[in-house]
């Protein structure tokens, strides 16, 4: 076994979820007929209850173009898409040197996230 390329590209959680869905993970309630291994189903379960379950390819593309003025690195953009922070305190650990790079516009960035990625219909977020 030879490793040709260690890092061929960073994937967002949504892309992995989309890939598993295209293999048939969503359609099979018995989990026996779909050509997926049990370990792949575990990854599917994890991704379904993360922020990626309600995202679409278009919304991620939209977010990437709209956050260009903030000059975020690729890994920061991927982290924000994966975690989907809904407040400034949640976005703080994702971005290095948040204050010196963004300052006040951190709030705008949080607004942008909330606008492009609507929160999923789950209980704890809507209660607050």
């Amino acid at each position, binding site marked *: 076994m030879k*490793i040709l*390329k260690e890092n061929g590209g960073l994937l967002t*959680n949504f892309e992995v979820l989309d890939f598993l869905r295209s293999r048939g993970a969503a359609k099979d309630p018995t989990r026996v007929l779909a050509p997926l291994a049990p370990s*792949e189903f575990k*990854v599917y*379960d994890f991704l379904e209850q993360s922020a990626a379950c309600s995202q679409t390819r278009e919304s991620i593309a939209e977010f990437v173009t709209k956050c260009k003025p903030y000059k975020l690195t690729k890994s920061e953009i991927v982290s924000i898409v994966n975690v989907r922070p809904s407040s400034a305190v949640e976005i703080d650990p994702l971005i290095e040197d948040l204050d010196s790079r963004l300052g006040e516009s951190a709030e705008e960035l949080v607004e942008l996230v909330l606008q492009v990625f609507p929160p999923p219909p789950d209980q704890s977020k809507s209660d607050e």
Partner: protein
Amino acid sequence: MFNLSKLEHTLRLQPHLLGLPINEAVKGELEGLFLDKVIAKLGLCISVYDIESIDGGFIFPNEGAPTYTVKFRLIMFRPFVGEIISAKLKESNADGLRLSLGFFDDIHIPKLLMPEPSRAKPDSENKNQVKWIWSFNDEEYLIDGYDEIRFRVQNIKFPEIPNEQKESKPFAPMEIIGSLVSDGGLGPISWWV
């Protein structure tokens, strides 16, 4: 959290598989070999993304199985240092916390990387477990197993395979050390929302 890795592997295709279309047979072999296994320095293999090329198909003397050289891409789970991940609490003891992602369980938050200042309170329900409590601004915040815990990846270790298996813990080929030290935003999500 996930990235693609391109690999090349030489594999023998058993004769009973030769009735299948070659793509399926090769994919099945690769899945059996790599899925849910840890490759050193690359991470945990989640899935075969695609097959780029299948070469060869020569049958060596004295064998019935053709040998193919396959180039393919795998989806690997390998968080980068500094990434923020949400995971569920699996175990909480005096050494720290153990978190689980469902498909990956070896995430450890040692007690030195808990938010300052924390203390452990022995749990009345389970004998070996403790509950960790964080004191901040005269308020106490409890880490219970109720909601997901966000942590920062501090380090990823790929320990060598030991020659003798220890009885107490099964060998973990990939371990993630996480940290909850931050200016805000890490720890159970209910602390911040």
